[in-house]
């Protein structure tokens, strides 16, 4: 009986792997950014399905059973990591009945492994600090260099899964890397005149972006990560923005604009609703357009407001 079961399992897994070579790999990513990069590297050897939409707050995604179905048949799960998805991904993975994509499985890829992670807290952490991420800021995909690192990680993983296609993935990665380097020059050129410009952001979503393009974040609309704006904090922020002449408020599309708009009226600043992710706005359809969109928007707003 035991032998039969083992034989059956072996047969099933052989069939499974044979299929994997024939059909494109089913890649499921938790966000559209990772999905876009996976598509760049995987080309037509992969199909990509992202769980969270780009205009959705990636901290608060509902663990819908329809996601369980996607994960059930996934050949590879790529997650942002750094506790970004801790509120919704674990129960989905648990219920997926897909052994390989469990966090210890060979088909689970934490995209943050090689990324440059900012704001890793040191010292004692408490929830009095708000919704802090103990292993650093999880919005790391917002710097082109991290996009490159993620792509390289995905290339390695895909090549492991499908060694026959390794040269294809390597060539796709090289191509992505080349185009990214070219685009980076363009983005850097767009932002170069505005190095050191002071900005305020709603949530701490942008450190990698501001770091990459030399903006200086002097405050946040949220008093603490995940805590909604309070009147006293808003007043303090207005004072501080007036004092430092901050003219740019960067907001994610999933936050209410009421408070940022009120702050903007008081300070003469401009609210810029950026795309924190691929899919965050209609025209942001891939990883390149993400930076095209954001750098242009920020550069224009700085020009218009004469921010310094």
């Amino acid at each position, binding site marked *: 009986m035991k032998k039969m079961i083992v034989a059956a399992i072996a047969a099933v897994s052989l069939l499974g792997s044979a299929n994997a070579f024939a059909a494109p790999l089913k890649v499921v990513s938790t966000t559209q950014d990772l999905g876009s990069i996976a598509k760049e590297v995987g080309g037509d050897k992969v199909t990509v399905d992202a769980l969270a939409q780009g205009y959705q707050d990636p901290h608060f995604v509902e663990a819908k059973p*329809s996601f369980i179905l996607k994960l059930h048949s996934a050949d590879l799960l790529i997650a942002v990591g750094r506790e970004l998805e801790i509120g919704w991904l674990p*129960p989905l993975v648990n219920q997926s009945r897909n052994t390989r994509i469990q966090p210890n499985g060979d088909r689970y890829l934490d995209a943050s492994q090689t990324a440059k992670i900012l704001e890793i807290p040191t010292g004692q952490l408490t929830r009095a600090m708000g919704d802090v991420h103990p292993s650093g800021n999880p919005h790391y995909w917002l710097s082109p260099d991290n996009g490159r690192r993620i792509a390289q*990680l995905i290339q390695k993983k895909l090549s492991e899964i499908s060694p026959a296609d390794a040269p294809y993935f390597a060539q796709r990665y090289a191509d992505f890397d080349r185009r990214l380097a070219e685009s980076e020059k363009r983005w850097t050129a767009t932002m170069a005149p505005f190095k050191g410009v002071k900005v305020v952001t709603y949530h701490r979503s942008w450190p990698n972006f501001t770091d990459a393009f030399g903006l200086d974040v002097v405050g946040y609309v949220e008093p603490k990560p995940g805590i909604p704006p309070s009147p006293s904090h808003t007043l303090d922020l207005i004072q501080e923005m007036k004092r430092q002449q901050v003219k740019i408020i960067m907001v994610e599309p999933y936050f209410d604009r009421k408070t940022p708009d009120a702050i903007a009226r008081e300070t003469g600043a401009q609210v810029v609703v950026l795309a924190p992710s691929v899919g965050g706005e209609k025209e942001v359809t891939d990883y390149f357009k993400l930076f095209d969109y954001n750098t242009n928007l920020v550069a224009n707003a700085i020009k218009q407001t004469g921010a310094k």
Partner: protein
Amino acid sequence: MAMCLSVRRAACSGLALCTLMATPLFAQNVPVPAASAAASQDPQQIRRELDRLRQEFEAIRDSYGARLAALESRLGGAAAPAATPPAAGEAPAAPVPPQPPQAAGVDVPSGAAGAGGPQGALPVYGNTGASSKVFNPDMAVIGNFLGATGSNRVQPAPALEMHEAEVTFQAVVDPYARADLFLTASPTGAEIEEGFLTLTSLPGGLLAKVGKMKQQFGKVNTMHAHTLPWVDVPIVMNNLLGGEEGLNDSGISVSKLLLNPFFFLEATGEVYQGDSGVFKTYKRSDVSWLGRLRGYRDLTEGTNLDIGASFATGHNDVWPDTTTKLFGVDATLRYRPLRRAIYHRFMGRTELIWSRKWHGDGDQAAFGMYASGEYQFAQRWFAGGRYDRSGRADDASLIDKGGSFIVTFWPSEFSQIRGQLRRTDYAIGRPANEALFQFLFSIGAHGAHVF
């Protein structure tokens, strides 16, 4: 990447060994045998070489420490790595144990480093398990404080009560399973609310749970008190499902996805010891059985429908050969616009439950239900209502009815304040008008919310 990492690790420990071997030898100015050729040339050169090696080692150790710190904090939630003072004078033993994160080490005065002594962060001794703490389960405690005003002579609840403290331990056991343990302490005592092993790597699309758990009968029965959208539980829980804890027993649960192109469909079969609020066991074979079918479909990206049917049967408490059969239907409609997901959502839910309890000389066929709605109208505010109606399992002609209005405020994701106005028309006794309130708080690792 994995390869790259392991190579780096190997390089790191190799380098660590070299440096550790080299450092004391160098301090005594004894020529290093392996480097004897170089020694004959120029001691200064060796010194520079060693310094360079030391710097490299430090750089690698720092990155390794940071990596470990990240790993540790990821696994251990916010738990700070424990640090005990290192035993002074102890020479580090080779191979070097994984370095604790920088914050946990003790910096050696910079002057000491020049003599070839220890430098940078010292490894922590006397706490051999420091690094194995990363394997500790995620822990959380959830406190549930209840208050009640108004009069209720039928089911009076205390004016103020620390109703429950729930302690949870959750971790992955091995590559094949994870475990979840929920212990509750309440004024009536301490108990295992749930404690089960989940086998996540079964073939055939199966998922199995073994242990004591809330039976998959409908929706409310499967939920912990702190995840309910009300202070109390619907009357039908008390009347037909055996009370606040409901159907909760030791057993085995197996569920399977029924894959089809149209919607999510899951079938669950469970067998239990047969001792829960409704069922009673007299002999080993008096197990209770449960079956559930759950369907789910996204209607739009923000709207979805969740429908289920459940059936349970087992021996009841009247006679050893009398049984109770339960049948339930539940439907949940959710709306949550993705772009404004943190500000608005709606959930409408109803459960209909039929109970058939044999008494030996006939049976009681009771019906109970609730219908509830909850709307989030601001980032931290919810308002809702519930209608209750239920017969009693032992006498279906006695029907209790009730209605509630609920307001909930979330100071943060980790605490909750709730008020509920409730009117209950009992089949026997005076109607009760009450104002209930609740404080909920959660400390520890961030538990995921089950959908």
